[in-house]
């Protein structure tokens, strides 16, 4: 691709923009001479953003109707997960989610039915299908970051081709596991991308109370790895910077920390009431920076997207969601007895006894 304005040193690789790296501005203007992907790829990306958005919206609705459990939507942050997933190869690169990354997980190969089942509280939603390079979502914060580093390190040790990306939020960068994992990643030069979605909020704790560091990307300096701040609502910037980080990792140059500036346009979880702490104008301010609108504006200018195409895409996404939701509802409901078989490869005598009790075979 052609150069972007200005260049900054990105751990030996020159990134051609001042931080935060932005390739598409809010109005959808391209800030580089060429887009980092074809229009076809951009449309695929747009569709993935839309699928993630509508999935989350539908799940919130279903949760309000009592058909789903507490869940954490990624509304407004879809470009972070989809853009970074687009820079991966599904068959060998690992996507390690926290809990707000459905859009990217779906893009990386999580079957839609399973995503519904996960939000329905079914254990089947957590089973990683054969061949999908992903760990189950982690309801804690930052505990999965060392897992991602360990996978990357192990792939490197076994000379297997593959990189790993861990997604986490601004709150996670205050956790010890983040520091310990990033530090280890630097030491072993693990082929890992530490992708921080700074959405300004950790439930009710604002970014300003999370750290006195002016940026979260600069924490990378302490680990001896490159850190870069990007516009997380810009699919092109997310894709391009992640792609370069993947290249670095594959070339044996080690980890990269990416801080993507984004905003939680939705809610922390369905159990949260943001009106207690979030100034209402903030969401309004960010609405115009919506990653979907921005990409649509850009693609409209290029003649690839228009309202009709948009409508057709919405209809297609809706049909896909409706079909998967129907499938999820029709999925067999696992028996609690089965859960006793998932603790160890073989049930212990006590688990066997408890299984019998749970199934009513024993007093």
């Amino acid at each position, binding site marked *: 691709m052609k150069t972007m304005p200005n260049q900054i040193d990105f751990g030996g690789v020159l990134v051609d923009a001042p931080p935060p790296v932005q390739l598409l501005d809010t109005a959808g203007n391209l800030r580089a001479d060429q887009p980092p992907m074809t229009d076809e790829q951009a449309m695929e990306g747009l569709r993935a953003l839309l699928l993630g958005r509508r999935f989350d919206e539908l799940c919130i609705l279903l949760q309000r109707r009592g058909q789903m459990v507490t869940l954490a939507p990624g509304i407004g942050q879809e470009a972070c997960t989809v853009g970074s997933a687009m820079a991966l190869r599904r068959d060998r690169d690992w996507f390690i989610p926290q809990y707000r990354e459905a859009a990217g997980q779906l893009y990386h190969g999580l079957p839609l039915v399973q995503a519904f089942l996960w939000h329905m509280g079914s254990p089947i939603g957590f089973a990683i299908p054969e061949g999908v390079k992903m760990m189950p979502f982690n309801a*804690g914060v930052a505990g999965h970051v060392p897992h991602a580093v*360990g996978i*990357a390190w*192990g792939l490197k040790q076994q000379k297997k081709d593959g990189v790993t990306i861990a997604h986490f939020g601004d709150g996670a960068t205050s956790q010890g596991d983040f520091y310990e994992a990033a530090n280890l990643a630097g030491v072993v030069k693990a082929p890992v991308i530490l992708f921080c979605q700074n959405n300004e909020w950790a439930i009710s704790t604002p970014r300003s109370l999370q750290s006195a560091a002016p940026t979260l990307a600069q924490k990378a300096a302490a680990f001896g790895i490159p850190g870069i701040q990007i516009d997380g609502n810009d699919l092109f910037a997310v894709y391009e910077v992640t792609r370069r980080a993947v290249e670095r990792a594959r070339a044996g140059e080690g980890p990269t920390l990416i801080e993507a500036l984004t905003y939680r346009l939705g809610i922390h979880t369905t159990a949260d009431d943001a009106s207690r702490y979030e100034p209402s104008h903030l969401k309004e301010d960010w609405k115009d920076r919506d990653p979907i609108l921005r990409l649509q504006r850009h693609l409209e200018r290029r003649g690839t997207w228009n309202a009709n195409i948009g409508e057709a895409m919405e209809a297609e996404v809706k049909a896909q969601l409706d079909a998967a939701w129907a499938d999820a509802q029709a999925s067999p409901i696992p028996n609690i007895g089965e859960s006793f078989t998932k603790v160890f490869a073989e049930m212990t005598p006590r688990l066997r006894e408890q299984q019998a009790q749970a199934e009513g075979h024993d007093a």
Partner: protein
Amino acid sequence: MREVTIVEAVRETLAYEMARDERVMVLGEDVGKTGGVFRATDGLYETFGRDRVFDAPLAESAIIGSAIGLAVSGMIPIAEIQFMGFTHNAMNQIAEHLARMRYRSWGSMPLPVTIRTPYGGGVRAPEMHSDAFEAFFTHCPGLKVVAPATPADTKGLLLSAIRDPDPVMVLEPLRGYRLIKGEMPDGEYTVPIGKAHVAREGADCTIIAWSAQVEVAKRAAEEADKQGVSVEVVDLRTLVPMDMETVCESVAKTGRVVVLQEANKTSGFAAEVIASIHEDDDCFYALKAPMVRVCGPDTPYPVQYFEEEYLVTPDKALRAVLKTVNA
């Protein structure tokens, strides 16, 4: 068969399995060039190289957390936590991730990870270097916990742990590392996880013990013999899953139970043993006297000055035996 110490048994077993399976690797603090602070990994660095005998940054959570990832990638990691007190730093990774991942992933993500750590006190070490809190780990569903007492069992259980498809915590008797010697079979030798062992036969009372307490139990049994009381010693060897069959056989025979536990009393594993016996009809109705547990007091592990008084001794165990026999 050769006579070796516990620490030699650990070292030889690690070397044996690393030579046999190149996926097996060791990570931990100071496990490389210096061979571990107890020399349990001595010589492995020279034989297997830096990548497979990795001197980790001083970060226990990353040691366990990255071991989880290593296992997912196809490696078979053995993580050493230098002292049991430091496992607290990794508790989130052990309890919330390592132990739960098979269940969380509905069986799709098993983690063959072994954690080795020295267990227990009695060597005049500083604070946080003498802990014996097995109950934190036996309370984590999804984690197996073994606590061998002899070099042969150390080899057999460690080898079973490394090959187990699930995470296993291997508690190694710290004060027995060099003190406890015994015969160890050469070559291939495993002890099944979940099988206790009658370390000494007797008729009047059963002492249930594990790890370093087995030696204490045996000495108490010898003293009891002199007073005409015949004591059976059951070495649990594995805490999770506990072998209730062997325990119950012994209880049915003797009708009296003393449980030794180095850790402080409240909410310790001895309570689990006693409750399990109580819940088993055959066991319970065989009892002739109330069960007794001999444990550390509910203070933190003490400074060296009080260490001897804190620990469970053969004398304390003997008094408990006589109490149940005379009850």
